[in-house]
């Protein structure tokens, strides 16, 4: 078996070290090694977006990143977006707009939306739908999610 490697990365603003085998995905390292279980394993082949995290500011599916590739990287997970026990406005908009049902896809949607609003503070509905196309939801449908993103962009809570 390939030797474990020691990886150092900044995760949610904090420098962390973890050991992983080369074959382990970043998703596995986050969930099993670092107990950051916010990112969810959905399809495990890059289709559903439930495991989305930000890697150096870019949304990526952490099931298709090897943990060893994260050496020196900056990673942001859904655990990092609420501050001081208070939900981020974006999370509050999802909550109040009932933009979720079973909730498995929600952390991925939140991370992609965060990246979107960081780049385009007031996206059009088309931009929202296009940029969130890599996140699949099998129970709610997308309208409530889109409305929650719009509410967050407008700085309102639905």
């Amino acid at each position, binding site marked *: *078996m*390939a030797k474990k*490697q020691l990886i150092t990365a900044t995760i949610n603003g904090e420098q962390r070290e973890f050991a992983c*085998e*080369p*074959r*382990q*995905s970043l998703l596995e390292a986050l969930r099993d090694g670092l107990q950051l279980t916010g990112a969810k394993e959905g399809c*495990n*082949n*890059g289709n559903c*977006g439930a495991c*989305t995290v930000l*890697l150096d500011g*870019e*949304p*990526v*599916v952490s099931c*298709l*990143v*090897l943990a*060893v*590739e994260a050496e020196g990287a900056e990673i942001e997970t859904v655990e990092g977006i609420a501050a001081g026990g208070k939900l981020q406005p974006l999370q509050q908009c999802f909550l109040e707009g009932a933009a979720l049902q079973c909730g498995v896809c929600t952390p991925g949607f939140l991370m*992609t939306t965060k*990246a979107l609003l960081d780049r385009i503070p007031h996206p059009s509905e088309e931009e929202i*739908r*296009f*940029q*969130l*196309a*890599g*996140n699949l939801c099998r129970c709610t449908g997308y309208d409530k999610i889109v409305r929650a993103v719009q509410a967050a962009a407008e700085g309102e809570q639905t």
Partner: protein
Amino acid sequence: MQDFDYAAPISTNDAVRLLSDPSQKSVVLAGGTDILVLLRERRRRATLVVDVKKIAELNELAMTAEGGLFLGAAVSCSRIYREAAIAQNYSALVDAVKIIGGWQIQSRATVGGNLCNASPAADSIPPLAIYDAVAEIATHSGRRQMPVAEFCTGVCKNVLARGELLVAIIFPPHPKLSGAAYQRFIPRNEMDIAVANAASYLELDKAGKIQKARIVLGAVAPTAVRASAAEESLVGQEPNEELFAIAGELAQQAASPIDDMRGTVEYRQHLCSVLSRRTLTIAAERAAANK
């Protein structure tokens, strides 16, 4: 996931040395959006994964001395479409990289990987072919170059021999009065595999007549195919919808698609005609605007 070792060389020579090691079954990792799925599903076997993203040359995205474009094989799709100069000069490439997977995939996936993966439905291959792009390949004995159009040899097969590494894709300069476009047809609005796709390139003369035309179709044969008869029908003519409709009809004759759950032979042939016509129309508009 199967067990493997991991190496992240920082030079092309080191990568080639690792890929040539006869004691290892090695694979290249660029964006990983295809290879990690194949490894996980055991459709590919490897004892060594060689991550090429730390090699400076493979990360280069710059204009060449001749005025063309040097696209390192490990440059991600999202980096490509964020560069305004590329969007202006190589718009068909940008049309394609904007719709490869969703945003998460575009953050990682590379055009180099898309080419090496050699899927018949690959989005970036028809745009590379219409621009007459060249693949630069590092081998243990030096470098070689070949037209991208000859790089794929069959379904998921390419010309790379053991120990060879795709370094970059080099685009010739973008002349004035030239324009190109890429489109695909998918049943969803986003994030799907092309039922058929097409890229077209047009170069106009000062009088506005078509001087050069290239049309390449994807997902309708084991590799991307050039629609030569359609191209010939355009040369010397003034661009217009009627001409493009005739070219579309001729283009579909170059297709030899399969029947599958995505579409029948007839459906795919029809799509070739429609997509050729539409991409020619956009290419002509872009060419006229590129003064």
